[in-house]
């Protein structure tokens, strides 16, 4: 062997020592919550010391083979969950986190999961929102496989990343609700539950065979087809659509308008001039036409679509129509390896339509599951939406923060929606009223004003709610 066992283990030990060194530096940072400091000093430290012990013991043994524990420790290290946690802690920036919206997420998740958790916020340069749990599964694994015990942190650590530049943009906060949707879908295994409800014997599903070429003369039966579309398209699309439904169910139209805003961001100038909104799907995401249709269906299911002011209904309809008439996309083909069998998938309009048809049959179940998961109190309803409209009309339009109505604290979801209502319905009134919003900076000053009013309101209404109870 070119590399001896001793060399390999020494190299591993070196990495562990560097990690320990990093933990020492991280433990000297200031954190608003003691739990993070304790987590670094006790739990992470305990893990890396245990890893060092295991490797050191193996180093001293005369056995030419690695011990089972060393193999395990090496695997965990290679997969990087520990490094991922340290990176999250190191990049956490409590000073610049979007405090106001974070409290809304915190309350929402606490109410759904009934468990305590910690949120680590990480600002990023790129346009990237994400929301994921980084500790709990690792802890369970270490307890089971390495018999470790005595961890001090027995709650989830949720990593939340957001684009630095959008920190104060509550108008885009709808996107976060989609990301929270991903988190809830993952934690509750909702994709699996939905996927298994597909009618795998239906003509629609079996017709997907036409789009697959099997290498090496292997059979393409129902089972192979299930495995192929579990690994690509269907499960990914189900995940995205469930997250969309959860976002619409929690924050309603504010999510849809945040999405429209992202569409503007991602449309290049040539496509804009030709009214050519990109409507491509991929292995990971369904088409916007399908997603927007589902979002509007979800609004209708909640019976809040009809409550929207005409102008907003028209805006949604315009986007829906624009995408409905745009189904042009280059068809790709690609290889997929399911364990040890190779297949080639040929994309076509036929494939996309069949996939959309299959998922359409699942939508009633997906809507019902989302409703059950969130619980009535976390679902947007007519009252919250009517409140949003009043907050926009009676407060924001008059440049008053939308924190309360009739001496009662406003609902956070109503506040978030009131921002969009004001932006889309009260723009000219606000311009007249506030001299600074003269259009020299486009919508920048208007957005800034609305966001500041919303941020103030989310903070103060939370305090007011505590007093009301």
């Amino acid at each position, binding site marked *: 062997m070119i590399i001896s066992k001793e060399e390999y283990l020494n190299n591993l030990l070196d990495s562990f020592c560097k990690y320990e060194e990093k933990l020492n530096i991280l433990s000297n940072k200031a954190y608003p919550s003691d739990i993070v400091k304790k987590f670094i000093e006790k739990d992470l430290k305990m893990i890396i010391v245990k890893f060092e012990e295991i490797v050191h013991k193996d180093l001293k043994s005369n056995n030419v083979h690695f011990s089972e524990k060393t193999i*395990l420790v090496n*695997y*965990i290290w290679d*997969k*990087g*969950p520990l490094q*991922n946690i340290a990176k999250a802690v190191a990049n956490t920036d409590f000073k610049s986190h979007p405090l106001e919206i974070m409290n809304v997420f915190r309350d929402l998740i606490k109410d759904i999961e009934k468990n305590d958790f910690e949120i680590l916020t990480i600002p990023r340069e790129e346009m*990237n*929102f*994400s*929301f*994921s*749990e*980084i500790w709990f*599964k*690792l802890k369970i*694994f270490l307890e*089971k*496989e390495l018999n470790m015990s005595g961890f001090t942190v027995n709650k989830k650590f949720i*990593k939340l*990343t957001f684009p630095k530049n959008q920190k104060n943009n509550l108008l885009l906060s709808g*996107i976060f609700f*989609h*990301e929270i949707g*991903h988190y809830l879908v*993952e934690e*509750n*295994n909702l994709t*699996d*539950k939905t*996927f*298994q*409800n597909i009618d*795998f*014997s239906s003509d629609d599903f079996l017709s997907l065979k036409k789009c697959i070429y099997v290498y090496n003369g292997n*059979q393409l*039966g*129902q*089972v*192979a087809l*299930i*495995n192929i579309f*579990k*690994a*690509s398209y269907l*499960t990914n699309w189900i995940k995205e659509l469930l997250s969309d439904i959860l976002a619409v169910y929690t924050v309603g139209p504010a999510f849809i308008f945040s999405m429209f805003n992202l569409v503007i961001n991602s449309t290049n100038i040539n496509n804009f001039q030709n009214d050519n909104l990109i409507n491509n799907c991929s*292995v990971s995401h369904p088409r916007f036409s399908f997603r927007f249709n589902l979002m509007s269906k979800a609004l209708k299911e909640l019976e809040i679509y009809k409550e929207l002011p005409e102008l907003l209904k028209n805006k949604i309809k315009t986007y829906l129509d624009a995408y409905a008439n745009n189904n042009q996309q*280059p*068809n*790709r*083909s*690609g*290889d*997929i*390896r*399911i*364990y*040890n*069998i190779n297949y080639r998938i040929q994309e076509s309009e036929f494939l996309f339509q069949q996939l959309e048809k299959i998922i359409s049959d699942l939508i009633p179940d997906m809507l019902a599951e989302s409703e059950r998961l969130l619980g009535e109190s976390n679902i947007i309803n007519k009252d919250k939406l009517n409140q949003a409209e009043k907050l926009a009309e009676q407060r924001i339009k008059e440049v008053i923060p939308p924190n309360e109505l009739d001496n009662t604290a406003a609902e956070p979801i109503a506040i978030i929606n009131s921002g969009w209502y004001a932006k889309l319905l009260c723009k000219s009134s606000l311009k007249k009223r506030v001299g600074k919003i003269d259009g020299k900076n486009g919508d920048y000053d208007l957005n800034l004003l609305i966001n500041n009013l919303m941020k103030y309101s989310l903070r103060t209404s939370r305090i007011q709610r505590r007093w009301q109870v």
Partner: protein
Amino acid sequence: MLMDYSQKQENSLFDLSLSLTFNKIIKSLTKEKDSKDKNYELTIKFFEVILDFCNKQFSELNNDFSGADAFSIFTSALNNMDIKVETIDDVLEEAEKYHSYLISFKAEEPLEPEKIEELIKLLEEINSQLNLKLESNQMNSWGY
């Protein structure tokens, strides 16, 4: 939007845990180790989620396991053993068979040597599929 990959890393820890469990039970079946050192429960659950998946049921087991994942791993293992499963009913039949072997084994009821051999072969194949899954990046070479 963009998904974070930490979730994938953590799911692979579960796959590893499953693989280690299979190793233990294989050793137990081959009497390499004391039969007390085995984890029947997780292995039995593995077959139960496959049965649930085929029967379109969703039970509490699914909080730990993905039925679709287990289905996929199991069918690939069967394929490697040259056992052809074309339909869900075929898979159901095979899963029920191995599930009953394991239940008997757990209850320390005598299992015929051929059945033990069959079970070991399957668990080994499942384990190699799990290892492939742990190592592989399934999508590749996409292009227009």
